[in-house]
């Protein structure tokens, strides 16, 4: 790599400071190291510069500046992602969007809200609550993660079983493209303005640009809710009960599963929810709707299905406080698992729901074979698995075993007809698995689409599509000359040497 040019680096930092103010440009190594990871501990990259714009116009000016200089950029929200998707290399500028945190509009009549990307997920629901509305996608990190990050990753959450993932709730977007142009996508009513570019943008993991204004759908807070906890003697039985509930035609708002390892970690923590410690698995089932009588009737039917499919007991939360406690245990399960070991890899894969019993057994066998603790806490109703591997990254060779076990788990999920990620995204972590589910033409098509939005592949480079696995595509040959996603470093006016601490 070409040695850094201090004058160019300095001029860039000065220019950035001129846009956002010097205190919102971070160049010191300890500051930049703060952004070296996201929620996944296995990837680490130290960004060259971190910039925190506070206004939409500042985002546009920063992106235009970087476009002029040919500098790669990586958008980032709260950094709670679980795929290494918001990490930037030393030659890139990390644009942190958490200061764009204004809720611009709540329109109760039309049940929509317009927000900036840095609005924290749970804050939007809190702001909509006085109108009897809420924003339904509810990732476990919802107290920290941002709507902008949710859009980039097409985030899910427990209640997506009934209400859909982020893509089902985004109506319109204002996007700053790689070259600094601003485009309006979609319409407030949700009907696309031409082809569905909003749908295409959601889940593009920051590769298509930066969403600076996001119009989302709000839904009425359900008037009636029943939350049930069912416990089982075996994972297989619990998995079979999930299929039975789904096939019954009743659509729970959420249908979550936790295995014994996870149950015990939660019960040993401050989030103890009263889950039976001796159970091999518990299911947390929530039913909701507009009518108390109807929800009660459906809850009774679901309880009967659970019992007839092997539940030892089915308990219904008596009041809102108990319901919140049951949910707190589930939503903080990843945090509770921090008690098990120093590091935790939260995996993400999806299988057909009917395959859950077999796949759960296979995951258990893989964990045992590698001598690893694998805990499962996941969205069972969607077949969206989160096998979590606890380990100590300081132990020589252990990380390689974790990687190998993760790979086998992914292969098992694909073999069952599933996919490699249901809500965490590909990022850096799943790049190697993409060729297992997409052929060269399909990967090349994705790359070609990305190049329509970002011809230089300069926004969040190196993520989502493994370039080496793409077949040649019309119009993309000239991109092959670069070293990383076609980005040619010799064209950059900006160099920051990689940190000695960076991998």
């Amino acid at each position, binding site marked *: 790599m070409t040695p850094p040019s201090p004058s160019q680096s300095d001029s860039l930092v000065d220019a950035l400071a001129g846009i956002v103010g010097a205190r919102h440009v971070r160049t010191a190594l300890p500051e930049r190291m703060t952004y070296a990871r996201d929620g996944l501990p296995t990837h680490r990259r130290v960004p060259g510069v971190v910039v925190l714009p506070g206004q939409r116009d500042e985002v546009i000016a920063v992106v235009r500046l970087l476009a002029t200089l040919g500098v790669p950029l990586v958008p980032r929200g709260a950094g709670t992602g679980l795929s290494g998707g918001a990490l930037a290399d030393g030659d890139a500028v990390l644009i942190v969007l958490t200061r764009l945190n204004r809720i611009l509009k709540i329109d109760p009549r039309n049940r929509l809200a317009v927000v900036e990307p840095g609005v924290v997920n749970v804050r939007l629901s809190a702001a909509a609550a006085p109108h009897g509305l809420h924003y339904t996608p509810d990732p476990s990190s919802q107290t920290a993660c941002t709507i902008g990050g949710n859009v980039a990753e097409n985030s*899910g959450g427990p209640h997506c079983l009934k209400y859909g993932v982020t893509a089902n709730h985004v109506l319109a977007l204002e996007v700053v493209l790689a070259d600094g142009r601003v485009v309006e996508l979609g319409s407030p009513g949700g009907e696309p303005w*031409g082809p569905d*570019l909003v749908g295409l943008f959601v889940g593009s993991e920051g590769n298509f640009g930066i969403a600076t204004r996001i119009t989302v759908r709000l839904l009425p807070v359900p008037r009636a809710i029943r939350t049930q906890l069912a416990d089982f003697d075996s994972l297989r039985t619990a998995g079979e009960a999930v299929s039975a509930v789904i096939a019954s035609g009743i659509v729970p708002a959420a249908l979550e599963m936790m295995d014994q390892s996870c149950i015990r970690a939660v019960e040993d923590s401050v989030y103890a929810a009263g889950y039976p410690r001796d159970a091999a698995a518990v299911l947390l089932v929530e039913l909701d709707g507009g009518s108390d009588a109807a929800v009660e009737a459906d809850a009774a039917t679901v309880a009967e299905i659970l019992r007839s499919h092997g539940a030892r007991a089915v308990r219904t939360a008596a009041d809102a406080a108990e319901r919140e406690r049951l949910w707190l245990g589930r939503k903080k399960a990843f945090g509770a698992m921090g008690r098990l070991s120093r590091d935790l890899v939260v995996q993400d894969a999806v299988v057909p729901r009917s395959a859950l019993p077999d796949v759960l057994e296979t995951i258990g066998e893989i964990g045992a074979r590698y001598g690893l603790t694998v805990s499962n806490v996941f969205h069972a109703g969607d077949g969206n698995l989160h096998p979590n591997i606890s380990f100590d990254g300081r132990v020589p060779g252990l990380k390689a075993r974790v990687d190998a076990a993760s790979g086998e788990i992914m292969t098992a999920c694909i073999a069952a007809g*599933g996919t490699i990620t249901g809500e965490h995204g*590909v990022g850096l972590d799943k790049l190697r698995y993409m060729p297992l589910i997409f052929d060269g033409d*399909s990967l090349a*098509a994705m790359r070609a689409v990305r190049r329509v939005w970002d011809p230089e592949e300069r926004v969040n480079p190196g993520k989502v599509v493994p370039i080496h696995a793409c077949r040649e595509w*019309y119009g993309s040959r000239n991109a092959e000359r670069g070293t990383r996603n076609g980005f040619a470093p010799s064209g950059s006016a900006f160099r920051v040497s990689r940190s000695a601490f960076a991998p």
Partner: protein
Amino acid sequence: MSLVDRVRALLGSDAVDLAATPDGVPRVAPASPDAVALLLGTAREEGWRLRVEGAGTWLPADAPADLALTTRRLDKIPAIEPQDLSATAEAGIGCDVLRQQLADRGTWLALDPPGLAGRTLGSVVATASSGPLRQGFGPVRDHLLGVTFVTGDGRVVQSGGKVVKNVAGYDLTKLEAGGFGAFGVIVLVHLRLRALPRADQTLVLEGTREDLTQVAEDIAAAGLQPAALELMSPALARRERWALAVRFAGSAALVAADEAGLRAATGGRFTALRADEAHGCWMRAAESFATRPVTFRVGGLPDSSDELLDLLQHQVGDEWVSASPGVGAIRWGGETTVDRLRRLRRTLAGLEVPLTVERAAWPLRAAVGHFGAYREGAGPLIAGLRRTFDPGEAFVVAVEGTE
């Protein structure tokens, strides 16, 4: 070798029907996705221009082209998985056949697109034609788990998969749903299903449009969540006055509770339809749009429905109108002109409301386009995407129009 001979040599003589189309364009019916790819790859080399057809019941088969590619032999249903509530179907399957086979397995695709019962799945997906059930179950894209499509130069591309949650790679399915065939020929569709509802009840109220609009607002304010809440013009509903049709679908307990809630919210003014009456009501409304010369949809906000209906009445009439006031979507059918449509589209654009032409004869489609002009900045993106998936401009699709 002539174009027809070349295609026969590629796909077999039974794949070509010379006399099938009214305008004499040779119609080719590939029997597999690979055959579609072979045909399109050759089309790219030879510079042939193609129009894509399904069952021929929706969009008029009149676009000027060298070949008409019909998906009607792609009519298999490789998988229905009741336990997973998913299915995989080829694009040329008729919606009526698909619906019956799904029902036989206790499952349901909660889409009720406009058009005749035999309209193909591929046509519904390519045009993103949802119907009244969009109120409760969302637009077409919400029912898709993935698609396989063939590009204008004959590449087979997969997007998404068979599972209900999937964020692996960019979601190209969204581009195909509602792309009107400009970004590829859809050959295979993975569908998200629901269990066949145990109870399914439709209730209807007649009245003035203004009165029924208020009733629709009352229903929303009462927190009811109907599967459909549709305001239909008298001609469409085959009634003396405007009709508001409400459909509840789900468990028996849920539907009973919703019916009670409806009575409480609206003073018991609705009339419940028998199952056969309800089926006829929804089917006739859907089919009516296949018999009007022009059909378009507009997507506004719930609180703008009344204003938009006024605008339509003023500019193009409101004889054949179906509106989902709960989501702000309106479908219009009837006769109109290029100038009127352009004027209406301009007016709607000022209100931030897109107008999508769903069905019309080629001269009108070519003039106004399915989408018309895009919002600022989106045009280059869409042009780039078209070049990506159809580098030789093989597909004859009136996307933007000529204005």
